[in-house]
């Protein structure tokens, strides 16, 4: 089986993101970039499949600038077999539909049996590239997937639902958006890192967006600063408990 994982490079979750002076973007200076966490889960799911079925080939692709190659190398170091970068001047302003269109030509070229995406990217949380790519390809797609397995005549897919899961079956090519893998995404081995450094990453031109962006960001605001906590000190523990319950109900409105 050939699996293609589409990933996105995003500011790492440990980075404190700041809004740029234009009020519409974030400051990229000093940002550590990494693979979006749901995409890491998608890679882990693909590699677990490869661990179990040796003839599996796992490719990764992303649409982005030169910096995105680091994310692809990270995926190669984890154990993916090949990587390609869809890039071009317009790649920064593609939007979800444009990104899906750019990835579509890569998918048609690479001809995977299965495409995995993270269910959403951790920077914009849009969650639309995966379904849009499935649409562009004319493939079926299943979202919020936690597990899949090859079975007779297709793929069995575990989709998470509220409090449980559904099991789906796809007879042919399919796109899945991944919620989580059973194991944490693997840490690369050092031979893996060294091999990944030497691998060629072919570039494919991203087509210019076919139609002008239909949506745009008008402004960005950081979340409001967190207020100080409240500490109950000394005195009667029972009274504290009562007061706490009242506050949780009336002020925090969580009860």
């Amino acid at each position, binding site marked *: 089986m050939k699996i293609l994982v589409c990933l996105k490079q995003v500011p*790492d979750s440990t980075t*404190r993101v700041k809004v740029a002076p234009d009020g519409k973007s974030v400051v990229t200076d000093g940002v550590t970039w990494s693979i979006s966490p749901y995409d890491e889960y998608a890679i882990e799911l693909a590699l677990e499949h490869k661990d179990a079925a040796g003839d599996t080939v796992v490719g990764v692709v992303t649409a982005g600038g030169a910096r995105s190659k680091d994310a692809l190398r990270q995926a190669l170091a984890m154990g993916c077999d090949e990587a390609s970068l869809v890039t071009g001047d317009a790649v920064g302003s593609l939007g979800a539909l444009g990104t899906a269109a750019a990835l579509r030509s890569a998918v048609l070229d690479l001809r995977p049996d299965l495409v995995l995406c993270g269910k959403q990217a951790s920077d914009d949380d849009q969650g639309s590239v995966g379904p849009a790519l499935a649409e562009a390809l004319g493939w079926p797609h299943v979202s919020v997937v936690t597990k899949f397995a090859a079975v007779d005549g297709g793929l069995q897919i575990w989709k998470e639902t509220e409090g449980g899961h559904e099991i789906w079956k796809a007879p042919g090519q399919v796109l899945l958006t991944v919620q989580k893998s059973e*194991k944490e995404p693997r840490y690369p081995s*050092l*031979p893996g890192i060294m091999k990944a450094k030497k691998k060629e990453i072919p570039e494919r031109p991203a087509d210019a967006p076919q139609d002008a962006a239909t949506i745009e960001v008008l402004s960005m605001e950081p979340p409001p600063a967190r207020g100080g906590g409240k500490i109950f000190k000394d005195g009667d523990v029972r009274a504290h408990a009562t007061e706490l319950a009242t506050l949780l109900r009336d002020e925090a409105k969580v009860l």
Partner: protein
Amino acid sequence: MTPPTSGAGALVLLVLAAAGFGAFLYRAGKLYRYLRLGRNEQRTGGLGRRFRDEVVIYLLQRKLLKRPYIVRGLAHAFIFWGFIVITIGTADLLLNGVVGRRVPGTESAVFVWAVDVFAVLVLSSIALAGVRRAFFKPPRMHIALDGYVILGLIAVLMVSLVALESAGVASALVARGQTSPPVGALLAPFLGGPAAVALFAGAWWVHVVTVLAFAAYLPQSKHLHIVTTLPNVFFRSERPRGALRLIEQIEDQETFGAASLRDLSWKQHLDGYTCTECGRCSDNCPALATGKALDPQKIVLDLRDLLLREGDQLLKDPTAAGTPPAHQLATKPEELWACTTCAACVEQCPVTIEHIDKIVDMRRYLTMQEAAAPPEAQRAMTNIERAGNPWGEAASTRADWAAGRGVPTFAEKPDAEYLYFVGCAASFDRRNQRVAKALARILGAAGVSFAILGTEETCNGDPARRMGNEYLWQQQAQRNIETFAAYKVRKVIASCPHCFNTIANEYPQLGGRYEVVHALQLVQDLISEGRIAFSGGETETVAYHDPCYLGRHNGIYEDPRAVMDALPGVELMEIEPHHRERGFCCGAGGGRMWMEEQPGQRVNHRRVEQILAAGEAQGTQPAKVASGCPFCLIMLEEGVGAKGIQEQLRPVDVLELVASRLGGDTTVERTNA
């Protein structure tokens, strides 16, 4: 005394000696070839220290005579010293028996007396050892038939020696004018006539044949340590104890860590031959004591057994790698991950075995080659890569603790004398930020010129290196070394013993050489120079907990105590018997700070119990327990919290005790305030 070996006797002796020593040499040659399967390693620098080690550790048995082991240590020393004296006597017997020549000096009165005195001491020590094994089995000691065989052989040697001397004196075989062996002379009156002559010949043969049997048996036995300890002590590592081995040109290597017995050095295999199975390492291991899978003695013996089992095959096929030393059958990964690298084992080993190096080499294989570190360890390493700290806190907030405290960065104060390397714990952990603030106040009060790197500082790499990720350590170290160079840093203060250890002992491996002090060393100097004035402070009993990377790894036991002694109102309490070089780890070293701790009791909970027990034994419970390490502080805080005694026993850093007593200042942040 004339040996009973005329004519045919001498020939028989010659044949027996050839057989005994031949068997010894055959097996020894094999062991040597196995050993040479190991990686090459230079171990010949610093000859002066190596010869001094031989005198102190080998001849004077210094490491055997440690606090809790003094009686059995002495018993061993008597057997050992006796072995040296009596071996000379035995060589004399054999030489005299085969070619009729005497070893020079063996006829002197001093030597004849020494032989007998030691024969008695050895015999008593053997009896003690036998009784101990049979009836008072020491915890963790590996009791096997081998030990009894050895004790039995030594006993036969001593009894036959005394018998042949007594019979020799009784049958007037000791020539006139020669010194009579004192014990022999004492027993001689009970023997006489032809029986004595027969006894003399019998005992002589028993003695000599036993010696030869001993030689043949030795290389099959743990008793081989009488031979291998000599080179094992001589070739012990010249690295500082706190420094792990550098993997040079790491990017060009094909395998990483101990993937095969061939990847361990010849010296690590010699360690295996030298292990006496005494169990002192295991006896002092905090992981084993709290029910973890790790047993340091087993690590050493597993490697030795694997070498003995697969040595022939590896010699036959130079391309074979054999079973990886860290495999599921003998040394399981969970044993290796349980190690806190506290060095209690290394400290106690009487024959200078280097346990931590083996464990780390096997961790290197698991982490770098197999990418099989525990998930929490992998998370910590990813955090170091991405955020420059193992907790994954935002790198841009590293210096937030210092805001508004007049703590300059090197960029602001390029001529500062000292770099204060804050470390991740004091930068990001709220509890330990108070320690960084305390040190900043002390340095300010004493007028020390210092600056921090601010957000340019990154994790020193110690957790990664001890989790087996040498590559990540080198990257982190290189980044810091470059930053230090950019600011021409020459002197470094660290309030974290792990930062201190890796910058002082390991950065030189990558060319980073600085004058590094732990904050408590510097504070002690400032106090003795009169640069810090104290004004009062509450009267309180404070226990001192030795951090492993200050104490055992770097020998800094006195400075923190001297600082506490200088503090008004502080009554220093020792956590006996687990203090100084027997200090018990907090459980966080070796990267364990970021790993799950299972099964068994948590190491830090045991440590808190030890503090309470010491208080009980001494009749005063300490109000605080002070340490000099951020990880110890976190672990002790968790320990007292879990036991619900945080009001009775408050963990602090010694620096906080100092800061709270600085002259004329009342704005000190109180612990737990």
